[in-house]
């Protein structure tokens, strides 16, 4: 049975230096793959610009907006997102909140001060290029007091896990693992040393 894949990056660790560990890993039955060109991997990572990621936009709207105006502002925000190639996943309707501290915004040539605001949020999926443009439009929005655009990771998007109740005694849980380990060690010992040397030589080539 193949176990975890051990990836060696030759640029970082020349295989000769790691001879001991490679040998040990082979003995324990790991499958080893060698990446000769580590730099090419980072290049492919940068190419991901076209793919879309999930973002969350939180915003404070001016509290003086009426109900109709408020709905209009929200739909306009959604339009701005969809127009740039994004798609709305979920949203929280703006609700009146008291701010923890006074905020101010330049409107019509003077600073307007706000103690309350309408706080709402939108979760959406969009390509990275669209987000840059979206930021630009948000900054020039008259009715937005403040906004926050964050990228959401996999943890944030994953549904809340349902957990099984904990077992009271931990001893039962640990025993089988230890047994497995012992068995693995015994199995690993069967590989002859000549074979190991051959495998390592193949890896270097």
């Amino acid at each position: 049975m193949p176990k975890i894949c051990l990836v060696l990056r030759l640029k970082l660790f020349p295989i000769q230096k790691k001879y001991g560990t490679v040998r040990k890993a082979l003995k324990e039955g790991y499958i080893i793959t060698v990446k000769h060109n580590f730099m090419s991997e980072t290049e492919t990572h940068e190419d991901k610009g076209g793919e879309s990621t999930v973002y969350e936009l939180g915003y404070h709207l001016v509290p003086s907006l009426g109900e109709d105006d408020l709905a209009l502002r929200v739909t306009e925000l959604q339009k701005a997102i969809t127009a740039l190639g994004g798609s709305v996943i979920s949203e929280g309707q703006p609700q009146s909140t008291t701010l923890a501290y006074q905020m101010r915004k330049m409107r019509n040539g003077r600073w307007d001060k706000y103690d309350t605001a309408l706080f709402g949020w939108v979760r959406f999926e969009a390509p990275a290029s669209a987000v840059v443009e979206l930021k630009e439009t948000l900054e020039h929005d008259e009715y937005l007091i403040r906004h926050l655009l964050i990228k959401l990771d996999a943890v944030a998007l994953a549904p809340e896990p349902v957990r099984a109740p904990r077992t009271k005694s931990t001893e039962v849980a640990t025993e089988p693992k230890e047994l497995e380990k012992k068995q693995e060690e015994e199995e690993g010992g069967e590989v002859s040393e000549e074979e190991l040397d051959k495998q390592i030589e193949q890896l270097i080539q």
Partner: protein
Amino acid sequence: MIEKKKEDTTLPEVRYFDYKDIETLKRFLNPHGRIVGRKHTGLRAKQQRDLARAVKNARFMGLIPYVVR
């Protein structure tokens, strides 16, 4: 004498720190609105970093005060 660290029993079960979820964040703030250290929160290093990020975002959005006097 070296005391053995308590495991898991004291860890608060927060998977993702959302800056909008003020009630959860407030559990990790002291009465002055400062972020409580790892020693007292009992969080893992990554969780503590996520917490700090969330608190700072919440402060910026005016949901939590920067300072309480």
